[in-house]
């Protein structure tokens, strides 16, 4: 059902965990649907210096979270906010059709984390 890449990211997920003093936090999904993920980012000079995730969900949900953090790490906020669900799925050599919608939420969580950072920055000013 899943590509080798998906299974690799499921077995050895990259960047699992929390950042206690994160600059931005984004959560999407709903445990009712079976998928919930939170992404934490640490930002310096508009660049994502560190990123971590926590995910409740199926294999695809965990693998897409892991891949999203890999794609975003080291990128500028502008570059990172352009990462789409389709980019994530492609980087994993594809996802089963029924998983594209519900479980492929990590790109949205990343955007939410970036927006959270930008909002906080506004308030500080």
């Amino acid at each position, binding site marked *: 059902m899943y590509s080798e890449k998906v299974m690799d990211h499921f077995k050895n997920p990259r960047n699992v965990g929390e950042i206690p003093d994160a600059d931005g936090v984004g959560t999407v999904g709903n445990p009712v649907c079976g998928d919930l993920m939170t992404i934490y980012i640490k930002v310096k000079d508009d660049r994502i210096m560190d990123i971590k995730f926590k*995910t409740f969900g199926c294999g695809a949900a965990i693998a897409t979270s892991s891949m999203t953090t890999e794609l975003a790490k080291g990128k500028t906020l502008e570059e990172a906010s352009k990462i789409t669900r389709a980019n994530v799925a492609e980087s994993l050599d594809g996802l089963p059709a029924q998983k594209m919608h519900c479980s492929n939420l990590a790109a949205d969580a990343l955007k939410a984390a970036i927006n959270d950072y930008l909002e906080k920055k506004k308030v500080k000013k």
Partner: protein
Amino acid sequence: MTRKVYMDHTASRPIDPRVFESMTPYFKEIYGNPSSLHSFGLDAKKALEESRTKVARLIGAENPEEIRFTSGGTESNNLAIKGVAYRNKKRGNHIITTTIEHMSVMNTCKYLAKQGFEITYVPVDNQGVVDLEKLENVINEKTILISVTYASGEIGTIEPIREIGKLASDNEIYLHIDAVAAAGKIPINVEDEHINLLSISSNDMYGPKGVGALYIKKGTKIQPFMHGGGQEKGLRSGTENLPGIVGMAKAAEISEGEMEAESKRLRLLRDKLIKGALGSIERSYLNGHPTKRLPNNASLRFSYIEGESLILSLDMFGIQVSSGSACTTKTLEPSHVLLAIGLAHEEAHGSLLFTLGKQNQEEDVDYVLEVLPGVVKRLRAMSPLTPKEMMR
């Protein structure tokens, strides 16, 4: 090499080697058509009728003629429910079933609802036991059929069939029982339990796939939906799948003889698995009834994590199980059975179904108990739902 432990006997089972052996002559040597008059046909006919007798014996049917062979549990359930509904619609259009039935009952009822039948789904309690009082209360003068599972393959709960049978027969309503998950595992007696129709499947008893049977009590009014040469007393046309039928009968015969010892063995393994898992993993629970349950069923759930990732993780250790969560299927919705016993969606998503079988030994259970806590812990460490104090 990783150890292989198959504990998904609700999904599929290997064929018993004795069953396989019994079938082989019917592919190459005894290939006659039971409807033919010549001696090849008569040999086939004899095997067919002997098979009927063996299957009848397993479920306590008095007359082998009351057994009709089908292509499996799904067809038997379809034939029983649609066959009774259409044949008896002049008497009434009301059918009662429960909220925990197999999809082949659920979706047949849904289909009939679109055809103008009224369906009532009787709820179950939080252990999956059908509410008898509610069942009695929804019976009306238009009720023609009650369809209930003997035991749920998903949560293991065994239903109070005798009481339901009494209720149905007192009210002169046909009772159909889906015994696919129960037959061959626990004793069934269609006479004592006032059952009019009973579905069973061959593979669920370690027989070949693609064969099943429907018990139809003599005098039950039912109509076919497969029309043709009038086989199976006009109820299921099409040349009989003789190798399959012979295999199913052998499986029934073996199950009947070994049920007591095998159930006892499986119950011990099941209870060791349940006790071990619940004892070693915090916030883990058993789904279904603790004692009135199928001997091979351990349906467990673990807070804060999701079923599919549990299945994939256990598969990495060579352990094959299935999920109460239907995330692996097309719908992504959690199982209707788990929701029916009152679980919240996220609890239903965190369920895992272990179903033991003939080849499982105590070492397999030990291995699962060795692996499972670590797998749960790893996924919980990744989950945003896990309370912080649990991870310390």
